[in-house]
């Protein structure tokens, strides 16, 4: 119970500081917007081409935007050594991770939701009927990115060459969830769309495995 109440207080702080500074959201939204616009004008794809490679492009843009978002999530705590104060204040250090994961997932989802209509308009893809399934896919994919990314952000924040280390570790570890997320999104954007439950199961399993790893070993990631 203390874990959840601590995590809820921490999420409140994360959201408040982000909406006050708007550092992460504005950076990632601009980044994804530029990628989607540039690709749309460069390739000028037909509707069927968009359905085929659009989801891959979208998830690649989300991945790089996420790595921009994840990098500062622990670095910001180092400026005034607030991570020390957090570690002293919480009962269970996993609450810090849980809150960071929740906040990062929320910010990623928000950015993805804002980008969806832009993508639909520029790539001439219609998927309104599949919106709930797309939201579920985006949620599970973003959660996977956030869980792994938050853990690696904590590790890399204490390392030298931290700017290099996070993407270096993040990209190979996220490959499975990205491949599955892209596959599931492709099926949802086909002319005859359907939800691939096997893919959803794989994404949920990926998220559960890495959350468990973080729950078991997260405390060590925060140690100096």
């Amino acid at each position, binding site marked *: 119970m203390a874990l959840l109440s601590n995590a809820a*207080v*921490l999420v409140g702080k994360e959201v408040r500081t982000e909406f006050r500074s708007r550092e992460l959201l504005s950076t990632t939204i601009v980044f994804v917007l530029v990628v989607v616009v540039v690709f749309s004008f460069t390739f000028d794809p037909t509707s069927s081409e968009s359905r085929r490679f659009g989801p891959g492009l979208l998830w690649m843009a989300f991945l790089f935007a996420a790595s921009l978002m994840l990098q500062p999530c622990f670095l910001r705590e180092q400026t005034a050594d607030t991570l*020390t104060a957090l*570690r002293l*204040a919480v009962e269970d250090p996993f609450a810090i991770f849980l809150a960071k994961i929740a906040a990062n997932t929320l910010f990623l989802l928000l950015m993805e939701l804002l980008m969806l209509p832009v993508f639909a308009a520029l790539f001439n893809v219609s998927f309104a009927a599949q919106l709930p399934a797309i939201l579920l896919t985006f949620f599970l994919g973003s959660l996977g990115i956030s869980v792994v990314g938050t853990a690696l952000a904590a590790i890399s924040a204490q390392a030298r060459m931290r700017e290099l280390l996070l993407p270096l570790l993040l990209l190979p570890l996220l490959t499975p969830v990205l491949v599955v997320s892209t596959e599931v999104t492709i099926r949802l954007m086909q002319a005859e769309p359907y939800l691939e439950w096997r893919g959803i199961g794989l994404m949920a399993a990926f998220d559960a495995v890495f959350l468990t790893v973080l729950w078991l070993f997260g405390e060590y990631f925060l140690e100096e």
Partner: protein
Amino acid sequence: MPAAQRSIGLQFDQVEKRYGSVYALRNLTFHIAPGECVALAGRNGSGKTTLLRVAARLVRPGRGTVSYSGADRNRRPAIGFVAHAPMVYEELTAEENLLFFARLQNVEHPAEQVGKLLAEVGLEDRRDSPVRTFSRGMRQRTAIARALLARPSLLLFDEPATGLDAESGFWLTDQVRKLRDSGCTIVMSLHGESELARLATRAVRLEAGGLIADTHRGAMFQSIFAGTAI
């Protein structure tokens, strides 16, 4: 000042901490009794900060143990930590920062407690100002209020007076005196003999991670700080 919870003692048993091949702490064994006010002296790199962080369980020793005596075994002891960095969020106001940390630590009646502490540290008028607009002295006041929120039974100060002007320095000394008199166990790392050092009931000197002198108030007390001023 809020009264401390039952104060606790600290026991270091053969504590060792290495960063690569460099010893930050070397085979350290000593006891701090509940209610003691201990000044840690030593040159830069002598291991003072590492000792405080090990005491707060922020750093795990490579060898040896740190235990708290007189603490409730079923609860983690409340530890207040004040260092050079204020450990508060610059984007949030003083009140938002304190309320945030109060809620994290399940402080009863957080708004009331925060109001009292803000008045106590002299920041009542600036409660709605973001911390980024604060001077160094005001940030340190906020940091002290944060450290006192959960009525800690052990207070650790890591060079708390660094960068403070004379007025803020006197204020800090006054606060530490009140805390010491309320029975809180205090361990503070200091550079050179100062007003703060005079509050200590015991002084310990570290060199290269090892304990080289340990004395209670008396003839040797001042010599502990020799050559450590910056």
